[in-house]
């Protein structure tokens, strides 16, 4: 019953927003560069094969980028857990990496890695890396004081402390980082495609083609699909990690 109510309210808000958007469009009060929901929908019916053709490589690259970033982030976080003095340097380096403008990075990577999936995967990884790293490091280093004292009292080794206390304690924050990073991976892949990093196929490529061809409905359709994929990524990550949360999420 409560779940139903949780769904009803967002659905109502969504329907109302669409209705307002559609009627504003019909009344001519929106700029010509904005497509109406009806136009976007009919574009979806016409072009869904093309859309899937372009979305699939984007999704696959996002996934690889996400996994690579997760491996790097958790690896670094574990290093920090065993060698806390490394924390500041790792943080500083991560902030630098996270603030590099990805649009500018793509052409540089193209010169280095050649146009293709590798560039897209790299950008997706960089775009999703930061929240994962923050979540993992904060989770591993912020252990409740009493529990830390308990391990000290019991003369636990560093290995025991990391494995039996810090890692389980880190799960909720690490998972929050993963969730936040899902959408970043998809946006990263699209940015790489958009700025010409991956050849002819890709949702970002389709988006830029539509945009520069003044195809307003197709542009908006690609935007809508991007939003849906990003939200989808959040839910997929949430679903997969819910097992860990059930096991380690402390209520």
């Amino acid at each position: 019953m409560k779940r139903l109510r949780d769904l009803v309210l967002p659905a109502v808000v969504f329907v109302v927003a669409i209705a307002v958007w559609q009627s504003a469009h019909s009344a001519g009060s929106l700029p010509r560069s904005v497509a109406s929901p009806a136009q976007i929908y009919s574009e979806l019916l016409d072009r869904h094969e093309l859309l899937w053709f372009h979305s699939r490589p984007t999704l696959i690259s996002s996934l690889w980028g996400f996994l690579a970033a997760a491996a790097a982030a958790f690896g670094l976080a574990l290093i920090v857990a065993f060698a806390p003095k490394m924390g500041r340097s790792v943080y500083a380096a991560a902030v630098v990496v996270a603030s590099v403008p990805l649009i500018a990075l793509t052409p540089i990577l193209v010169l280095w890695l050649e146009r293709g999936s590798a560039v897209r995967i790299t950008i997706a990884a960089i775009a999703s890396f930061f929240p994962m790293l923050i979540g993992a490091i904060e989770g591993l280093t912020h252990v409740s004081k009493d529990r830390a004292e308990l391990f000290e009292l019991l003369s636990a080794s560093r290995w025991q402390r990391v494995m039996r206390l810090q890692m389980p304690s880190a799960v909720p924050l690490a998972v929050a980082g993963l969730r936040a990073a899902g959408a970043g991976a998809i946006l990263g892949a699209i940015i790489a495609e958009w700025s010409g990093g991956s050849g002819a196929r890709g949702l970002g490529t389709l988006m830029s083609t539509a945009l520069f061809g003044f195809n307003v409905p197709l542009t908006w359709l690609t935007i809508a699909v991007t939003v849906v994929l990003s939200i989808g990524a959040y839910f997929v990550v949430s679903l997969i990690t819910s097992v860990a949360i059930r096991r380690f999420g402390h209520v």
Partner: protein
Amino acid sequence: MMTADRHDTHDTHEGGIHVKDVCMRFGKGADAVIALDEVSFDVADGGFAALIGPSGCGKSTMLRLIADLLQPTKGSVTVGGRAPSELRSQRRIGFVFQDHALLPWRSVVDNIRLPLQLSRQRSSDNRAGVSDLIKLVGLEGFEAARPAELSGGMRQRVAIARALVLAPEVLLLDEPFGALDEITRQRLNLELLRIWSETGTTAVLVTHSLSEAALLADEVIVLSARPGRIQACIKVPLQRPRTLEQMKTAEFHTVENALREALFGEALQ
């Protein structure tokens, strides 16, 4: 001043806790806080002491000094003639933390087993011990439950069982029942007494409750605040085993009043 240090190494029958001229200062210079100032007291081997005093007078600090979680700025603490650091490295100190400090991802039995795992004792060697302990603290049937599924009183029992699983020489309890209602608290008080007498460990309890201190302890150490000093040491001449009935006696009220006076006297200064 150094008398407590005589024959440190082979003084095995000279058990108990000896706190001698302990000062504890946190921080340096103008920001320094003197948490404890020239504190000395003894707890007999197998005895039960209670520490009471206003908030911030250094009760938790005193327990941490005995547990070697802190080292005194000055003075010495010995347990059974040995340094707390030695005891801690042998995992001979049981500590019940104020908010129980259970690991929420572990079941009751796995929480109790944690000290065994960390000291690399095979839990199969000790299984009988763990199940006896679960019986001792009255948690049969809840072995597989997670802390989140337990009541506050049950969580504290798990914490007590965990503190006892390595058969510690001293059991330190920091307001273990502070968050519980009066009825549960009294029941757990009696259980704690039973456990303490069955295990023969030396116990130090920090509490804010005068009646809890009077019911449990052989001697109550009253601390004053800022800096933490010993205000009074009050012996509790009640017979053991203690019962709730004793709480109605004139003797009990005399002890409680003495404690109250020691505390209030300090507040009026």
